[in-house]
């Protein structure tokens, strides 16, 4: 009996709805990914792609169940996104929100201490990993963990929203990173100091944001892909709405909205020529310089 048989036996015990979840995911999935879903759920791998990494909790059937079932959910809801992750061997994930993107594009991902040392702004969640002296960037090989953080991170109060993002790093890139062991309630993998932009393989964002984020990252090798999933209930925290901690109930479509053109037009009508004149001059100068002189001049 190899490791995966062991996990299969244990997973069915820790996840009572295992068979129902598998049946449900197969019922909604496209035909082309059904065998992939079965392989992921039953073995935690597909071909040479393995979900589990040596850096995280190995002998925990509950976490392994979540790891497999959540990735299978991604296959069912966003097959192209999941197949890309499989193709590129992307198995480490970090959840954040849209506010982090400019900093990531310019500076890569940095720990709290690295940001302070470099004189760069500390934004979004890095400060949370500073708790009790932990100084690292938090990744996970459990997609749900990153999804959880991205869901929480995208909200500021009840109505205030940014948009969730999930950053993906390939297993092949891990050897270039300084990993550390993390003792945590959630399956975390710590990366010391810095993840350069060149090692970020993908960023998952809501479908409505793919065009925008793709434009930002168009000069990089980062692949921007859609993921409209969010978690209704958060990892490890009891939620009376979901007493059985049912994985399927936890997944929902992420909060999303857009400003229509008529909204923007209406806003524009309110301005004055005086206010616009100043910014117009500099704007045109900047555009001319960008076009004729170059971005770095």
């Amino acid at each position, binding site marked *: 009996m190899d490791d995966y048989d062991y996990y299969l036996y244990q997973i069915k015990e820790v996840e009572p709805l295992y068979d129902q979840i598998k049946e449900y995911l197969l019922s909604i999935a496209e035909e082309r990914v059904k065998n992939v879903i079965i392989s992921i759920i039953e073995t935690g791998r597909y071909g040479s792609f393995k979900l589990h990494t040596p850096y995280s909790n190995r002998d925990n059937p509950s976490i392994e169940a979540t790891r497999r079932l959540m990735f299978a959910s991604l296959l069912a809801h966003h097959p192209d996104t999941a197949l890309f992750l499989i193709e590129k061997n992307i198995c480490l994930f970090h959840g954040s929100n849209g506010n982090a993107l400019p900093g990531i594009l310019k500076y890569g991902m940095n720990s709290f201490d690295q940001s302070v040392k470099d004189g760069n702004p500390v934004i979004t969640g890095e400060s949370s990993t500073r708790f009790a002296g932990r100084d690292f960037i938090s990744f996970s090989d459990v997609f749900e963990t990153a999804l959880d953080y991205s869901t929480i991170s995208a909200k500021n109060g009840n109505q205030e929203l940014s948009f969730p993002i999930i950053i993906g790093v390939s297993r092949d890139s891990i050897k270039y990173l300084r990993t550390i062991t993390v003792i945590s309630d959630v399956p975390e993998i710590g990366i010391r100091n810095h993840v350069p932009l060149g090692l970020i393989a993908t960023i998952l964002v809501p479908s409505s944001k793919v065009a925008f984020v793709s434009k930002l990252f*168009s000069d990089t090798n980062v692949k921007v892909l859609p993921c409209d999933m969010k978690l209704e209930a958060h990892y490890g925290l009891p939620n009376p709405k979901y007493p059985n901690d049912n994985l399927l109930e936890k997944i929902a479509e992420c909060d999303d909205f*857009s*400003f229509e053109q008529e909204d923007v037009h209406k806003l524009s009508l309110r301005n004055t020529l005086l206010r616009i004149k100043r910014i117009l001059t500099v704007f045109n100068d900047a555009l001319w310089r960008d076009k004729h002189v170059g971005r770095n001049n």
Partner: protein
Amino acid sequence: MLEEIINSDLAKEALMVLSFWKEDMIAKVDDQFLQRLSDIAADSHKEFYFDKNKPLDEQNISNDCRDLITMVYYCYIANNQEQREVFNSWINNSKRSN
């Protein structure tokens, strides 16, 4: 030059507002402009969130950001007729405020 008038917080605020524009509008905005804006925005310590239940003109965004958003709309999105309407409105608003 862009940096002289657009500081990092303003660039970040504008960029985050633009991120919530409809895809067909974003498709018309120059990639390089967005990347320049993002480059300046990278040094901002602020985060920006928006109320999904409010239209754009009721969002809590700064006047400078409104100006910059208006410019982006005028330069990249508005057709000739919309540009004329917006420009005439600016002139009229300026006269009223004098």
